[in-house]
């Protein structure tokens, strides 16, 4: 049973919308219609259903109409044609009162640039939706606090938005949307304004929250990696039309047309993934400070059989094997240089998975990813295999 059913939803910006719609039916392109009628086609006959508890990603490049589409769903933009059916009601046609009720109770939105109210505290921001519904002060601040706790901001409730970092501000945006306890969460490029590392954290956190919340989420993004990461299903948009809807696998494996294929080409994993994507933070010891004893301790702690050695500036010196280190300890050798091995297998961070495969084949230790002599990370055999198989911890945002 779908929560939202969208049928033939269209938006034409301009005066003569009827004519533009007719031309669309005749199969004219967006550009032709603009030339002929002066109207801009924002969204062209979008049709899809979103199931309860699903994360439905609408993805496309800028100008593809994705932001318009999400605003048609809660009617921040008036649709020209088509329907948005939620709980048996066609939101595109209901009167203002019903629309307001649906916005208050069933749909909340998270915005790209957070759209927090700067004159309100974090708590007052999170309360906003409930305040508007006329929920009494005590009850609404209790609910708002709960949802702020949920996103990990319980300690910041009396601050103002400008005192928080971008990632935290967007958590407030999320908390504000969740405080209403909506059925549907509309997220318009919610993480696009955040820097890559924070963005990844937020994606993880959203997925974690989703396990317990089971909301229906419609997530807009221009970032294919983000779409693949969080989407249960993905709708790809181009020039206002949806060109393909499917699970991430379906889209990667069976692109519906050239456009999608070109789009997903970039994620052909063995071609595109490089050392940078699959490397881990290395365990290292500092040759200037540490001896064989520390090396051995560290390896025991981490459960590894070799460890990389750097100097104080992270310049790669070599590696030490656990066996050699324990030998050295017995013989009371203090200097790491005596057991240091320098035949390090190295790659650069741009080395593709194909090439890594060649190197990792012949070496007993993890591969070092090096740039200008400095150790950036290590690649272990398991990560290469997992990444090629299309699973495992792959940092696509790197």
């Amino acid at each position, binding site marked *: 049973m779908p929560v939202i059913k969208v049928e033939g939803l269209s938006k034409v910006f301009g005066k003569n919308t009827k004519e533009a719609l007719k031309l669309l039916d005749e199969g004219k392109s967006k550009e032709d219609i603009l030339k002929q009628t002066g109207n801009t086609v924002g969204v062209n006959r979008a049709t899809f259903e979103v199931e309860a508890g699903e994360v439905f990603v609408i993805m496309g490049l800028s100008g593809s109409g994705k932001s318009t589409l999400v605003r048609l769903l809660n009617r*921040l933009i008036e649709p020209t044609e088509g329907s948005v059916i939620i709980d048996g009601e066609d939101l595109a046609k209901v009167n203002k009162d019903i629309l*307001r009720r649906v*916005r*208050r109770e069933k749909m909340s939105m998270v915005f790209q640039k957070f759209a927090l*109210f700067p004159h309100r505290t974090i708590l007052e921001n999170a309360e*906003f*939706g409930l305040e*508007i519904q006329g929920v009494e002060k005590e009850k609404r601040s209790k609910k708002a606090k709960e949802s702020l706790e949920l996103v990990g901001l319980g300690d910041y409730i009396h601050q103002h938005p400008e005192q928080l970092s971008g990632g935290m501000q967007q958590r407030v945006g999320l908390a504000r949307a969740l405080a209403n306890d909506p059925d549907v969460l509309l997220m318009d490029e919610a993480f696009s304004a955040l820097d890559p590392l924070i963005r990844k954290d937020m994606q993880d956190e959203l997925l974690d929250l989703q396990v317990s919340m089971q909301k229906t989420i419609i997530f807009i993004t221009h970032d294919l990696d983000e779409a693949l990461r969080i989407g249960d299903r993905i709708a790809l948009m181009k020039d206002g039309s949806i060109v393909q809807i499917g699970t991430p696998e379906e889209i990667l494996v069976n692109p519906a047309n050239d456009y999608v294929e070109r789009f997903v080409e970039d994620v052909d994993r063995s071609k595109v993934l490089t050392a940078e994507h699959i490397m881990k933070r290395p365990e290292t010891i500092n040759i200037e400070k540490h001896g064989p004893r520390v090396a051995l301790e560290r390896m025991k702690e981490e459960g590894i059989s070799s460890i990389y050695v750097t100097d104080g500036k992270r310049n790669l010196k070599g590696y030490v094997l656990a066996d050699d280190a324990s030998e050295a300890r017995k013989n009371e050798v203090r200097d790491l240089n005596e057991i240091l091995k320098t035949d390090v297998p190295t790659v650069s961070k741009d080395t593709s998975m194909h090439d890594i495969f060649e190197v990792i084949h012949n070496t007993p230790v993890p591969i070092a990813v090096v740039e200008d002599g400095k150790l950036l990370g290590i690649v272990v055999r398991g990560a290469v295999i997992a990444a090629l198989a299309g699973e495992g911890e792959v940092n696509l945002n790197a």
Partner: protein
Amino acid sequence: MLDFIEKIRIAEAIEFFTDWLTDAFSFLFDPIKNQFGDFMDWSSDQLSAIPPIIIILIVGILAFFVSGKRFGLAAFSVIGLWLIYNQGLWEHLMETFALVLISSLLSILVGVPIGILMSKSKTAEAIITPILDFMQTMPAFVYLIPAVAFFGIGMVPGIFASLIFATPPTVRFTNLGIRQVSTELVEASDAFGSTGSQKLFKVELPMAKSTIMAGINQTVMLSLSMVVIASMIGAPGLGRDVLSSLQRAEAGTGFVAGISIVILAIIIDRFTQNLNTKRK
């Protein structure tokens, strides 16, 4: 060649119109003149009844806190007000102040709602903008003439003229402030299901507050200048001192009255500006 028709009788038409207005609305103008005139006299009497020392102290203390606990404005206010007292202009100062206070309040009361209307409707904006331009470019003296026709002489026509002359900045800045609220914030308040008035009072007006305050500051300053001019039609206060020294060519007393107005202007300006920056 240019005389292909005789002089168009604009002046006569306006005069006729004003006369008609005066007659037709005298049922409205007369009570305003009487009731409001009484109220104005009453409020300036009240202000004058307070001992000057108390007012000076209160203004000084307020200045200290309004300017963020600094002594500059407070010292200036106390010394400036004492100087006016010393020159024997205290009563006139109070009259001017009462006029400025009442006419600014009226301007704000009228101006903010009109500004809100303008920000909400393109048609209203298209109609009101040229009217505001007209109101602001017309020489201020011209307003005095119908003011006298409607309300006779005294405080009330002064306030009427000041209302017309000083309201436009509040209207403009209210409109501007609301239109400047970012689309995402407006969308956010819509997306959570705000009604029009919830959006206005919870989002738009708070966000536009500092812009509106800048407009109000200008309105207050314009009121002050108009209130001085209005002494020509019998409005009491410091303006009357300027006018009479002009008529008698007394440079000295004219200068003293002028300086008093400047002191009042600076105090009012700094007060309204500081209120604005503090609340940001």
